[in-house]
Every structure is written in structure tokens, then in C-alpha cells.
């Protein structure tokens, strides 16, 4: 418990408090009157209103489209399932710059919709909502589907035998078990869309602005720290509110679940109804996820001399005619992977410890509060944390402002909530009597955890590390502020290439994005495969 607390205090609470404090204090006096001043500005109110309703709409739409997907991934076997599960997670880690490009190709002028029906959705709210679904599809499929695949279908069958109708059995047995996971997924999606930055900027055009965009503008562009501080507090309050609701829903339904090996629960679809459902889900994945990704691949191969790999070849050199980089862009892949590895390990250790501490029965109110605290980094903009680092970590022994370790640290801050969120429902569902039995038999707490909890949560750990890894790979905000040009990460390299004119640069950006997608998909696939044979011991 001590380690996660220290980590958060030093790398999150202290920097954020410092930057907010600088905005709200003048001449050594707190000026809380500024809060009222800022919140009475009509432009700020517009921003708040838009942020909230687009997040609600995005969350509803994502759940609507992704829940059937979660069911299909959990309960059906079909060829290419693992590959597809990895692929749907790819959007989640793509830099928004790239996603914006892909979506414009679909929704904008001359895009697919335009050619079929003459519909153009760019610079409308629809584009923002659909992009949010694209981004967060995997969040729902993985968090809800991960648990769903481990629920014992025999429980539902037992209810049917006892005379419950199909719907009633589902409502009484499966739904209560799933509710915490659905709530967790919905909460995550809401948080992400509430704090959406790049998507809103690119697809919404300048007419739409979310809180996150406004905080960035006030901090990085205008250096209006008072306004930024007030907006950060508003975001804090909003996120805190969401978390409180979430904690309440979870507390209402904490039952020990009987988890089984997912391999036992899924089977090929039977009957027309199930096949239709599978087909429908696959179609929605194709349209929403694969098509935008496909556009990027197509553009990366589309050279002036017909289709070919010229752009990929160009990535290998540090560019003889005017260097965009000191190193070949390809090196960015290695950098990204190393950062992601470090960030994942940090996030797993911190998140794992926190989750373990939170599941102990004796965990009091204080610890529960910590649970919510862990989620806060998701609701704080990268620019706030980044600028906070600048003014707090500037003295030896902690002058980390120009150190590489800041990158994985900042990324781990975002990764930890994922780890906690994915592990907690499963850990809480572990029957306490197993732990007690182990203790009675003389196992130390650590040994009991290793022998009882770990085998049961191994899958959750893998899912969590997959998320942490993916988040880190695509993370752009923190990486921009930590300036080491000799080793840019993939998203930074893509952004730099897109920031210059010329066919080769554009093509290389598309090629790097494609590589980023592949790297992510492969990493996620490997994680899916790691499940050792021992998991069959359940």
C-alpha cells in the first residue's frame, strides 16, 4: 500500500497541486473568487455543456454497439477470433492525429459515405461520436467480455431448469454478475470521452471545444494559469462524481463469482439467431474498426508510381535530403517498445499492489478513497501533469525534467487505473474462504496470494498489462512534453512527419502509423497467447 501511495503523491498529486496552486494563489493569498469568475463566463459554460453531453452520447453509443460484441467474443468460437480481438484494441492506442486522418477519409469529402450516399459528417458531432466508439470499442469488449467469458454458463442453465425464462435467467443470473464490469467499462468510456482531446480537435473543427481542449489552450498557449486551474478543478469534481457513483454501484453487488476457464464457455454459434448475431457484430467491427484502419494501410502503400513499399523503404534512412530526424524513423519503434515495457512493469507493480490492498476485507473507508484516487489521472489532462512536472521535479535529487524515466512514469500514471479496474472485479470475486484455507494450512500472506489469487487473476493481469502496454504505445500527451529528440516515440514521429508538406513525409507518416498498428496488434496477440497451459487447472 505504501508504494502506490508514495508513487501517486510524488508523480501525480504534488505536481498537479503545484500547478493548480500557482493558478489560484496570488501574492501568497488564495483567490477562490476566481472560481466563480471563470465559471460565470458564457464561453466556459458552453464548453462544459458540450463536454458533458457528447461524453454521455458517446458512452451510450459505445455500449450499444460494443456490448453485443463483448457477448460474441466471450461466448462464441469462430476462426480468427484471437486476431480480431487484438485488432479491435489497436484503435485504442493509435495517436489521435492518425485516427482523425482515417476518419476524415471515411466521413469526409470523397469518403466512403460521401460516395455511397452523399453524406458528409466531418466537422459534425456525429464524426466525434463515431470516432469515440472506434476508440473505446475495445474497452467494453475487453473488460466486459473478459469477465463474461469466465462466467459459468451452467448457472444460467440451472436457472432455466428451475423454470425461469431465457430473459429472466439472464437478468437474474448473468446480469448481476456482469453489472460491475459493465459499470466499470461505461465509466472508463465516459472518462475517456469526457476528457477527449485530439478527436474533438481534428474532427470537430474549431467550433467544438471540450474541457480538455480548453485546459490545454489556457495552459500551453495562453499561460492563463488561473483559468486553467479552475477548469482542472471542475474536471476533478466531475471525475470524482463519476467515481462516487461507480463505487456505489460496485458496492451494491459484490458477490463472489464462480469463475471458470474461458475455453469451456465458448463454442461455435448454433442456429440462425446466433449466426445472425455473430454476423452483425462482425459487420459492425468491419465498418467501424477495420475500415478506418484499412484506409491508413492503403494510403501507406499508395505511391505516385502505383502501389508499393517505397514509403517503408524511406523510413530506414535518416533522410539524406534534409533530415526530419537525427535517427531513422524506424528507430522510433524500438524506443516506443522500450518505454512501453518500462511503463507496463511500473503500472503492473503499482496497480497490482493497489488492487491487492483494496480487496482485503479490512480495507476501510480510507482505502476506498484511494481506489477513487487511482482513477483521477484519467481525468487530468496531460498538459496539467506535464507542466506540473516542470515546476516540481526541478531540483536534485529529483531533477527529472530532462530524464527519459519521466515518459514511462507519466504513461504508467494512465496505465495504473486500467490495471486496477481490470484486476479488482476479479480479485473481489475470489472466494475469501480459499485464502483463509490457505492461511490455516500455514501459508504466509504472500504465499497465499501467489497460490490462490494469482492463478485466478492471471488472465486479468494479462488483460491489464495488455491495456497498460497499449496505452503507453499510443500515448502522445506526456511524451510531447518530455523532450528527447534523439529517441522519439512512434506517435511523436508520426506527428512530426504529418507536420511537414511533401508526398514522402505524408507517405512515411501513413507507413509509420501502419507499423504502429502492427506492433500493437502483435504485442496484444502475444499477450493473448501467453496464457500458459496451467490456466487449465481452474
Amino acid at each position: 500500500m505504501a508504494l502506490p501511495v508514495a508513487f501517486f503523491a510524488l508523480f501525480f498529486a504534488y505536481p498537479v497541486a503545484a500547478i493548480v496552486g500557482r493558478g489560484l494563489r496570488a501574492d501568497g493569498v488564495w483567490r477562490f473568487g476566481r472560481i466563480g469568475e471563470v465559471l460565470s463566463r458564457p464561453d466556459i459554460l458552453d464548453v462544459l455543456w458540450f463536454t458533458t453531453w457528447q461524453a454521455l452520447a458517446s458512452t451510450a453509443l459505445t455500449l450499444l454497439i460494443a456490448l453485443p460484441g463483448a457477448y460474441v467474443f466471450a461466448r462464441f468460437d469462430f476462426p480468427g477470433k484471437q486476431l480480431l480481438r487484438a485488432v479491435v484494441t489497436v484503435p485504442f492506442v493509435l495517436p489521435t492525429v492518425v485516427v482523425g486522418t482515417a476518419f476524415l477519409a471515411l466521413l469526409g469529402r470523397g469518403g466512403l459515405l460521401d460516395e455511397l450516399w452523399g453524406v458528409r459528417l466531418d466537422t459534425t458531432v456525429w464524426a466525434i461520436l463515431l470516432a469515440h466508439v472506434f476508440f473505446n470499442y475495445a474497452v467494453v469488449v475487453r473488460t466486459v467480455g473478459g469477465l463474461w467469458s469466465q462466467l459459468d454458463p451452467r448457472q444460467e442453465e440451472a436457472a432455466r431448469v428451475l423454470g425461469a425464462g431465457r430473459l429472466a435467467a439472464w437478468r437474474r443470473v448473468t446480469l448481476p454478475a456482469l453489472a460491475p464490469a459493465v459499470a466499470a467499462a461505461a465509466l472508463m468510456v465516459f472518462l475517456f470521452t469526457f476528457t477527449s482531446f485530439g478527436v474533438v480537435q481534428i474532427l470537430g473543427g474549431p467550433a467544438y471545444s471540450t474541457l480538455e481542449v480548453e485546459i490545454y489552450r489556457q495552459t500551453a498557449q495562453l499561460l492563463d494559469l488561473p483559468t486553467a486551474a479552475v477548469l482542472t478543478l471542475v474536471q476533478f469534481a466531475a471525475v470524482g462524481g463519476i467515481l462516487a457513483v461507480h463505487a456505489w454501484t460496485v458496492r451494491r453487488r459484490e458477490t463472489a463469482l464462480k469463475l471458470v476457464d474461458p475455453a469451456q464457455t465458448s463454442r461455435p454459434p448454433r442456429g440462425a439467431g446466433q449466426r445472425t448475431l455473430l454476423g452483425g457484430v462482425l459487420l459492425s467491427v468491419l465498418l467501424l474498426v477495420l475500415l478506418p484502419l484499412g484506409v491508413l494501410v492503403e494510403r501507406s502503400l499508395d505511391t505516385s508510381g502505383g502501389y508499393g513499399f517505397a514509403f517503408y523503404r524511406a523510413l530506414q534512412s535518416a533522410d539524406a535530403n534534409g533530415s526530419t530526424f537525427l535517427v531513422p524513423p524506424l528507430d522510433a519503434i524500438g524506443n516506443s517498445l522500450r518505454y512501453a515495457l518500462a511503463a507496463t512493469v511500473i503500472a503492473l507493480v503499482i496497480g497490482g499492489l493497489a488492487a491487492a490492498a483494496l480487496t482485503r476485507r479490512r480495507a476501510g473507508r480510507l482505502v476506498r478513497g484511494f481506489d477513487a484516487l487511482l482513477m483521477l489521472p484519467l481525468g487530468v489532462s496531460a498538459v496539467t501533469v506535464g507542466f506540473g512536472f516542470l515546476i516540481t521535479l526541478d531540483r536534485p535529487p529529483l531533477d527529472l525534467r530532462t530524464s527519459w524515466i519521466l515518459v514511462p512514469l507519466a504513461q504508467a500514471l494512465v496505465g495504473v487505473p486500467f490495471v486496477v479496474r481490470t484486476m479488482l472485479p476479479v480479485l473481489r470475486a475470489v472466494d475469501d474462504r480459499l485464502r483463509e484455507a490457505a492461511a490455516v494450512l500455514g501459508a504466509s500472506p504472500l504465499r497465499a496470494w501467489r497460490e490462490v489469487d494469482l492463478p485466478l487473476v492471471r488472465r486479468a493481469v494479462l488483460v491489464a498489462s495488455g491495456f497498460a502496454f497499449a496505452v503507453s504505445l499510443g500515448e502522445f500527451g506526456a511524451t510531447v512534453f518530455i523532450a528527447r529528440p534523439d529517441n522519439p516515440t512512434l506517435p511523436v514521429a508520426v506527428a512530426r512527419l504529418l507536420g511537414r508538406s511533401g508526398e514522402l513525409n505524408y507517405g512515411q507518416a501513413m507507413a509509420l502509423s501502419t507499423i504502429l498498428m502492427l506492433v500493437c496488434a502483435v504485442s496484444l496477440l502475444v499477450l493473448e497467447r501467453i496464457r500458459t497451459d496451467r490456466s487449465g487447472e481452474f
Partner: protein
Amino acid sequence: MNTTTKYAATALAAALGVSVLAGCGGADDGASGGGAGGSETVTLVSHDSFNASDAVLKAFTKETGYTVKVLKSGDAGAALNQEILTKGSPRGDVFFGADNTLLSRALDNGLFTPYKAKGLERVAADTQLDAGKHRVTPVDTGDICVNYDKKYFADRKLDPPQSFDDLLKPAYRNLLVTENAATSSPGLGFLLGTVAAHGETGYQDYWKKLKSNGVKVVDGWEQAYNEEFSGSAGGKKAKADRPLVVSYASSPPVEVLYADPQPTEAPTGVATGTCFRQIEFAGLLDGAKNEAGGKALLDFLISKRFQEDMPLNMFVNPVAKDAKLPELFTKFGATVDKPATVAPEKIAENREQWVQSWSSLVVK
């Protein structure tokens, strides 16, 4: 719990160890205080667009014994604001990238230690905006101008626009795309250009007319240029339909440089009467750890060698009069004789208000 913590601490330490071994560039290359090798580091803080070729940086090390370390942090505005935040304990010795739209903010915050760079007499006088105090040294200039898609206008036998007023003509209706002045530096530059051309009251009227003539505003340069502008490589793929975009005077040479095979003529042209001049400055940071190295670096930034290397790395124009432009620029670039300018203090005073009223006129 105790054992768990210990176990975790070990794991964390091991993890950090592993990642250091994996070589995240983990070697801390701070100033080593000039050891036996006499190699000392001088740190240049800049924005994402800074670039210099390796050979030139090595030449500087050979000449002075200082190794240059470059830190880039975000766009020009964000990078400068980070310096203002860390004033007094800067991350580096020299800051490069305060342009004339941001200069006053940098100077008012007292970021820089005055230093008159060696060789300043070779630098064009009209770029030396702080000639009295030498807190900053001009390094490069760049022009923000409307670019046009040559093919589009040739196909229609229509002359491309040449001035701000031309853009209001019905012939160019729905053809121009520009960037958000609140978030994008070319967007801001174009707005300032219209202020210079039409005055501090007339610019609003100009934008009203421009809006009714169908100007499109997108958020950033990348999107405007690569997705909306029909003359760029990206735009051609995206089937873009706007043949006019607010970009830079150096964009056509860049289009040529990065095309494969290289064409004999640039696919895009520059409307030379629509330009706003940006001047970028560098200065010695107040509280720099390596002041001597910082001064040497400032001298170097305006040396002939660096000034001639710069155009093909950053696509900007040199300020040193003896620096020759590369052939690519002279052959495909445009010379802008009368760029619009606005005094830095005027920009500092009014920028917020101009951008605000621009937003409410054009965006909302």
C-alpha cells in the same frame, strides 16, 4: 503487507533496472563539467520544428568543444510557456523559437540574459527587433502566405489570387481553407496579416466578407494542408477540393523535395501579396548553467555555416546577409518583397482580443 511491499519494491527496482539496460537512452548526459576530454554540454531548448544536420552540430563541437543537446517540447507557444514557468531554473542554456508574435511575452517575463552575438553586423537590420538591448538574437525568417494549386487554376484558365483583396472575389468563392487562429501559428499569422493590411478596425469587416465568400476554417496546419488542400500530396489522395490554403512561402520547395520522382516545376505556388513575416529569435536563458557555452551557441546560430544549413532542415530563410540560399529555394521558392508585419508590442497588447473577435466572427 510488509512482505508484499518488499516484494514489490524489489520488482520495481528490477523493472527500472531492466529498462535502463534496455537502453532507453538512459545514460544521463548532463553537463559533465568538462572532464579530461574537455567535452562540455550546452543545452538548446526549442519547439518541435527545430532541426539541424548532424554534420553542422559536429562542426560546432569541433570548433568550441561543446556538445549540443537539443530538447524539444511542443509547439512554439507551448515551448515558450514552459520556459516562462521554469524561469530561474531553466532546463537548458539557450532557448530558440520565440517568434515576433510571442516575443513581447518572452521579454516581459525577463527570460533572457542580454548578449550581443558575434557577427551580428552581418544580420539584416529589419530583423533585429531588440537591437537596443540584445536580449534576443534573430535566427531565421519565414513567410506565412496563401498557397495555390497550380493545376486547378490552369485547368480553369483562371488567374490565382495575389492579394488579401483578391480573396474576396466571387471567382474564388469556397476555395480557401485556413487554420484556427487560436491554436495554429499559420492561422494566427494570416489573421495578423489581415490586421496589417486592413487596420485594427477594418480587419473584422474583411473577415466578414471572407466568411461570406466561403472560407473554411480547420483546426491545424496538418489538416488544412494534407486533407483539405488539393495541391498537396496528401490532399490529392484525400480528393481534397480546396485549391487555396494558408501555409508557408517555403511549402512549394518542400513539395518538390519530398516528391518521388522530383518534378521540374513545383505543383503549388505562392500568392505573394498575402504574406505575414515571422521572425524567430534565440536568447541566452537567465540562470543558464553553461553561460559560456550558450554564448558560443548563439554566435554559431548566426554563423554562415549554420545559416546555410538551416533552410533545408527547417524550411526557413536565413537572416545573415552572407548566407546563400540553396538551389531548391531559388528555383522553386517565391520571394516576398513586401510582407505584412505588426509590431511585437502591438501584437502582445491586442492578440487575445483579435483572436477572440475573430473566433466569434468566423468560427461560432
